[in-house]
């Protein structure tokens, strides 16, 4: 039976197979949230084992539950786990109080640069989805990054007058034709997004059907649950009573609010009202 979830799964497997053919040294970049874990389960299903190493960018600010869950999952699925920390920056006291951007840049981006330098990865497979965020809506399945990890778009390369061969490849990504640009020159690495076409509700439905064990923090405790899991200082739970996968699916069907946006509390509303005075 080929239903909606099977379609999604087979497209993801197709992309993962393409990665194995086209790249010499790829790795999964995994946050151990529901999306990246779903991706690992699909890889296991497709290849019988997890075919590439799994990199975890550990900022040191993750939830304790997450670390415990990660280690349980490694035992269950049996993958090569690379835990990467930017020890230098952490020792120097890098943290969210230095500014959200600074912190992410140092503990994630710089950290990833060090991982590439050390292991020579040429591709990272991530579990991002198109419906997740305004910015991600423009992502491609195969997304080349330059040395600063900036997204190389066709417009950029055209402007710079270079001929990296990227634009024609990117533009040839035609959904429905199973043609994905996966041959690259001149890129630091390529990011691959095999779950790009999944929605949040698809992922939960897949988790339900395949009985995937996700981080328990997704389920409501005392009226609150996490909808996405980042670092502790920058992630807040939402009001919810959904304590099972079924209840989460039901909740998602009833709400149309963007996943990373959350809803405004009355307090935020009051604040916005005061700010609208514009007396900056």
């Amino acid at each position, binding site marked *: 039976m080929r239903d909606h979830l099977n379609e999604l799964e087979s497209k993801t497997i197709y992309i993962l197979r393409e990665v194995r053919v086209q790249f010499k040294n790829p790795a999964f970049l995994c946050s151990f949230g529901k999306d990246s874990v779903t991706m690992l389960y699909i890889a296991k299903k497709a290849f019988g084992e997890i075919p590439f190493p799994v990199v975890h960018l550990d900022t040191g600010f993750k939830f304790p539950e997450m670390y415990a869950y990660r280690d349980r999952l490694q035992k269950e699925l049996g993958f090569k786990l690379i835990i990467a920390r930017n020890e230098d920056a952490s020792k120097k006291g890098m943290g969210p109080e230095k500014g959200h951007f600074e912190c992410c840049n140092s503990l994630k981006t710089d950290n990833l640069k060090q991982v590439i330098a050390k292991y020579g990865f040429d591709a990272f497979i991530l579990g991002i989805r198109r419906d997740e965020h305004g910015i991600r*809506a423009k992502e491609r399945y195969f997304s080349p990054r330059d040395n600063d990890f900036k997204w190389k778009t066709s417009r950029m390369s055209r402007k710079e007058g270079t001929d990296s061969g990227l634009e024609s490849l990117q533009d040839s990504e035609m959904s429905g034709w199973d043609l994905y640009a996966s041959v690259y020159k001149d890129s630091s690495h390529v990011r691959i997004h095999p779950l790009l076409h999944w929605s949040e509700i698809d992922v939960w439905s897949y988790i339900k059907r395949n009985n995937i064990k996700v981080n328990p923090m997704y389920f409501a405790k005392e009226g609150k649950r996490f909808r996405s899991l980042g670092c502790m200082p920058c992630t807040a739970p939402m*009001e919810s009573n959904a304590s099972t996968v079924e209840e989460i699916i039901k909740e998602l069907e009833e709400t149309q609010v963007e996943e990373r946006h959350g809803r405004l*509390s009355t307090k935020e509303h009051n604040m*916005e009202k*005061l700010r*609208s*005075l*514009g*007396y900056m």
Partner: protein
Amino acid sequence: MKRVLFFLLFILTAFIIFRYIESSSVQMEPKYRKVLVIGIDGMDPKQGERTEMPNFRKLEFHTLDTSLPPHSPVAWTTIATGVNPGRHNIFDFIRWDSREKLPKLSLWEDDYSSIVKAEPLWRITSKAGIPTTVIRYPVTFPPEKVKGSMLSGLGVPDVKGFLSGYSFYTDDISVMGKKVIHVQGNPIETYVSGPRKQEGDNVVDVRVPMKIALNDGKAVVSIDGKTYDVKEGGWSDWIRVKFKTGFLSEVYGICKVYLMSSEPFKMYLTTVQIDPENPMFDISYTKEYSAELAREMGLFYTLGMPEDTDALNDNMIDDKIFLEQCDEIEAERDKMFWKEFEKFNKQEKGLLVVVYDTSDRLQHIYGENVSDYFLKKDRFLGEVLSRIDNNTAVIVLSDHGFTTFDKAVSVNTWLAENGYIALTREISAEDEGALFEYVDWDHTKAFSVGFNSVYCDEKITNELVEKLGKVEGIFKVYRKEDVYSGIYIEEAPNIILGFKPGYRMSWQNAVGGFTPEVVFENTKKWRNDHLVDPSYVPGVLYTNFKTNKEKPHQVDVAPTILSLLGLKPPEEMDGDDLT
């Protein structure tokens, strides 16, 4: 026969009662049959000194002492009511709700009813049967019944119930901001964010889909089945948006877009304003007056403060776009003025009050460099003066002047550092702790909200007055008992701060927040302000009649206008008749 006599007696009694009600204010011999008041928000006395302004020079000039503190809502309410804040109840842009322990805007109650407690002069003239029309006077939302028309000014909210809120649409992911909406593709499928709905403890925006097709430097914006063309570097016409807020309920808003560029795509959308033809709340008296205006002059900016200084401050629009918007708002106000002036000029008696406030926004940004604006105002005044008859008194006035805003002061930070505020965690640059989030109220003895107000335990007032007087940037510290009188003095902050020129309370402080430093540089485009000690920022008073006071104050204006029209000013008014 008896019946006829009875009937006549009845008619006579009714007539006497009616006359009595109509003239409940004591009548005197009017000096003028008509009074025309033109308000120019924030007009600084320096602006009128220019030699190239011959028409202002035809009038008698005085500086007009402003209210403490010199905020537009406080000052304009003082002018309209002739009483001090202790009687009219507006003490700052932002007030303290002691029940909810929250700072709130002093423009309305939570349900958008008026918080002004004193009687404004248009109510008195209306009761006396004098035709009275008031256009865009600050703090007149909600509008009130007058013997004529009223269009509300500062305080009219947008469709969300806010005072402003633009949106910026772009496909450039490097453009960041709270009001930025990232879009993609061509045609672009996005939305206009509208009114808010309470859903349980949360608040959600109601949205309407918007499609934008780009072609050759042009955009076609489709909303609700209608299309609007906009060229690169140009404005659209007014766009009407219908928001479904519930089963059978809908709200209408109007907005405009400005297309900066189509590649990368950058488009500014004004605050979605209340539609004057289908208003969600009344923004005029009569209810139909706003629609009548819109039918005659086209749709117009209805928001209380529509000049988008926020978008300019956030660098989402540039000066050119901001100034074009200001020009348009000014032109709309002119149309309203002339429509009402033609009517007023033909009347036997009457009061017409029109307030222009783009002048205030321009001076906040450009300071003294706004001569073009005031030269135009002079030509406008020339035209007005050439048209009036001998029976018309003319008053041109402003609510305050201007000074620079170089340094911001956070009095809350000072109070915390000096042990008057107890905090439950340390202050950091990233988290200002707005709305007193980290304040331990049980151990807090004083705090500041708004731009000049300090609330404290009465026992420490004297101690605080003395200490605050030594804080950098503070010129004078006032105790409420020394400066206010009246039954609403209970609502007043215990202490009112008068800043030196160049200093202003920080925005963070105004909303109950903290900053790492007590005093720091202001780096915004909002470079000028007037929230200092009133002695530094008097407004202007121009009259075409002789006045009798060297230094008139705002409280004198209402009694003067009533006296000009032959009405005895009520005893409760604090001011004097200047004639």
